[in-house]
């Protein structure tokens, strides 16, 4: 039996290591390969990917498949994770009462107070009052400016204007007296007339001062302490914008509403705890630690999280041919986040930041139907196939081929659905753990916090660095370096923040500046990966102590991420742990750990 192959079927990739047996019974790994996993891990459809991976590993050696003596599969631990988000607060406007947004070019500057009136009614208005004129899109800017001028010279007091189209500067430039003008107000028809209103436009590069301060709003509209309390959400929503309008309507009401997000039930070996999701991630995670070891987590039906729990359990039940009732959610990770939400009842499509909690769940069962998969593979390729070793053990065996390591060593595998850690002690004992929350959670956080509603784009933002296209011929990368191009860039990219994906730059359609997007990306990675790495290492560490682990090696795809390894190493350095990307067999980098481990384990068994 000269050649053998170790095969690792993971959630994302299928990896192969092919070894040649020397006369002395030593296995020498001569080739390896990696392909995308076909189908959900553990299903017979995986066979397609395995055959592809085997062929790729064998082709440089010029060996046909049938010459393989044996194929070794890993005993995959079935772990499935999923994510969901519950919004806890939202801003609701009953009766229109505020406009706060960032039209790129408002007109004029300063603060104006008056009563709202339609442009067509100005001529018949009272001359003793200050007016805020509402100009619909059907009126051309020259006509609007002329009518305003006529009204001003006839001693009508025009204090400010609210304009539907992007005409603010054009109107302002044609007025005899400067007034603040807010433009690009899409739903101008919803602006109530005959109501007291304030318009504020800040200088370029500044943000509104008065209308973002509840006491200034109270001063302007002579509000009672009760009313002042109610306008706090307005002031908060207007913070950071360059122009704003606040209108006081008799029944007008803006509320920051708390949305009932339901509760989750933590069932530990020794105690049970109910916790409201809207208490926030910190207290949820505190309880998780307190109740641990966890046996099961239940979520309230009818909530987003409840729905997500059901889906995960259903998928796992289908996968392993078990009744859904036998599948339990065993771990959760909660993360606090702020999501931009369209203000309900808004006039210009304003957004306000609402609080939300992101939750990742994980289910784990004892065994996948790997035997079925092995039989199917054997049938297809006519090579004896066996399930040869447990994933976690094989991974750590493979990882130990990294030069410069020895037990006690831990490996961290930051996947898509779960964060996995294993530890091997000096005596060779192996302990492993799977935790909820990994790559998919990071993608979700990026998507929600940027308000993209596009998971593919969010995924790209997670995976690749950003750049700003500054001219038609160059872009500045997020690290400050400048890249020039010989051909002009797509005008659609001009002036935009782009993700440098594998398929070239993709524009990120948001007004957030590059630095803000980088911050959101890095925070999401820290909240999930760094937090989970510490959580996982604590669980597997001797006496639950990270300090007693000497070496930590990162394996799997996320070890190749351009910033995650550094973040984890930064946080582990204070525990005195050597942290780095694994380098399997000194050649493979963080890939091929399990496949390598399978071959090594088989060799050892043959020898004994």
């Amino acid at each position, binding site marked *: 039996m000269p050649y053998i192959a170790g095969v690792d079927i993971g959630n994302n990739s299928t990896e192969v290591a092919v070894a040649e047996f020397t006369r002395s019974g030593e296995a020498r790994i001569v080739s390896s390969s990696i392909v995308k996993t*076909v*189908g959900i891990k553990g*299903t*017979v*459809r995986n066979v397609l990917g395995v055959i592809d991976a085997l062929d790729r590993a064998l082709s440089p050696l010029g060996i046909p498949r049938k010459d393989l003596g044996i194929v070794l599969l890993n005993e995959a631990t079935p772990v499935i994770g999923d994510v969901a988000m519950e919004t806890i607060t939202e801003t609701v406007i009953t009766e229109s009462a505020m406009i706060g*947004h*960032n*039209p*790129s*070019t408002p007109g004029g500057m300063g603060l104006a107070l008056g009563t709202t009136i339609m442009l067509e009614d100005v001529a018949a208005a009272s001359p003793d009052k200050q007016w805020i004129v509402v100009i619909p899109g059907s009126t051309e*800017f020259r006509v609007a400016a002329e009518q305003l001028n006529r009204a001003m010279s006839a001693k009508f007091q025009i204090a400010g204007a609210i304009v*539907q*189209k*992007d*005409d*603010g*500067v*054009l109107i302002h*430039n044609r007025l005899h007296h400067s007034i603040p003008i807010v433009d*690009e107000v*899409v739903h101008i028809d919803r602006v109530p007339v005959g109501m007291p209103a304030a318009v504020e436009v800040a200088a370029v590069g500044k943000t509104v001062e008065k209308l973002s301060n509840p006491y200034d709003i109270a001063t302007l509209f002579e509000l009672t302490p009760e009313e002042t309390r109610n306008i706090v959400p307005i002031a908060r929503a207007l913070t950071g914008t360059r122009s704003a309008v606040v209108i006081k309507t008799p029944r007008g009401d803006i509320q920051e509403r708390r949305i009932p997000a339901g509760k989750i039930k933590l069932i530990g070996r020794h105690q049970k705890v109910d916790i409201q999701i809207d208490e926030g991630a910190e207290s949820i995670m505190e309880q998780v630690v307190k109740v641990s070891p966890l046996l099961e987590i239940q979520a309230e039906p009818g909530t987003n999280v409840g729905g997500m729990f059901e889906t995960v359990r259903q998928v796992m039940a*289908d996968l392993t041919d078990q009744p859904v009732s036998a599948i339990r959610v065993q771990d959760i990770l909660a993360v606090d986040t702020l999501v931009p939400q*369209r203000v309900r009842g808004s006039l*210009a*499509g*304003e*957004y306000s930041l609402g609080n939300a909690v992101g939750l990742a769940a994980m289910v784990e069962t004892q065994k996948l139907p790997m035997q079925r998969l092995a039989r199917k593979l054997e049938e297809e390729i006519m090579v004896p196939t066996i399930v040869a070793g447990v994933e976690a053990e094989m991974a750590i065996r493979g990882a130990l081929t990294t030069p410069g390591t020895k037990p006690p060593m831990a490996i961290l595998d930051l996947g898509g659905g779960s964060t996995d850690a294993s530890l091997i002690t000096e005596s060779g004992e192996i302990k492993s753990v799977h935790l909820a929350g990994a790559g998919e959670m990071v993608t979700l956080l990026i998507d929600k916090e*940027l*308000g*993209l*509603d*596009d998971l593919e784009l969010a995924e790209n933002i997670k995976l690749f660095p950003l750049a700003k296209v*500054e*001219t*038609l*011929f160059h872009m500045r990368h997020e690290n400050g370096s400048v890249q020039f191009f010989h051909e*002009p860039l797509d*005008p*659609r990219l*001009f*002036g*935009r923040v782009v993700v440098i994906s594998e398929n070239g730059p993709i524009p990120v*359609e*948001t*007004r957030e500046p590059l630095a803000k997007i980088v911050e959101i990306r890095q925070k999401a990675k820290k909240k999930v990966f760094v937090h989970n790495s510490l959580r996982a290492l604590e669980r597997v560490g001797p006496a639950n102590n990270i300090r007693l682990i000497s070496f930590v090696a990162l394996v799997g795809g996320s070890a190749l991420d351009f910033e995650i390894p550094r973040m984890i190493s930064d946080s582990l350095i204070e525990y005195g742990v050597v942290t780095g990307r694994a380098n399997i067999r000194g050649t493979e980098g963080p890939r091929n750990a399990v496949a390598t481990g399978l071959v090594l384990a088989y060799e050892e068994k043959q020898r004994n």
Partner: protein
Amino acid sequence: MAGSEAKPVVRILTTMPSPEKEIGYILWGLEEEEIPAEIEEVEEKPLKILAKQAADGSKLNVGIGISGTDQMALLHHRDLPADKPLFSMTADEFNMTQLRMLGANAARLVKGNPLLFHSEQAYSSGPKDSMQLQQNALNDPAQLSQNQLGELLTLVVIELLTHIERQA
């Protein structure tokens, strides 16, 4: 000409007789974006050359060529090759909305702000609206590349296989 080279302006070169009304639309676009412009009447010339000449002579590197006779307008940048203007407005786009957008884009090109591609974009303020545009492009199968089509096909086949597997 000497004057315009000294001042930082977007240059607009027009063939005679100059289309006053249409130039006005372009100027509105520039004005709303707060970038100054200067107009000059010149001899009849191919429009691409005219626009390029306008851009080359502008301190801001941005120029527009316009012809009332041909009902066409081009936006050019000094760094672009003469035969590749950034935007060309054809006769059926020679209207207020499009020309005003051309003016706004000339200004945005100077400022380094994202360009406008649909006039309705001027009214959108949230990220959702522009997303919609992207989405539409994705939904149009004609715009899918060979690779994307292949991927799509694979997905469909896998989906079918899963279905059959479940039923069995």
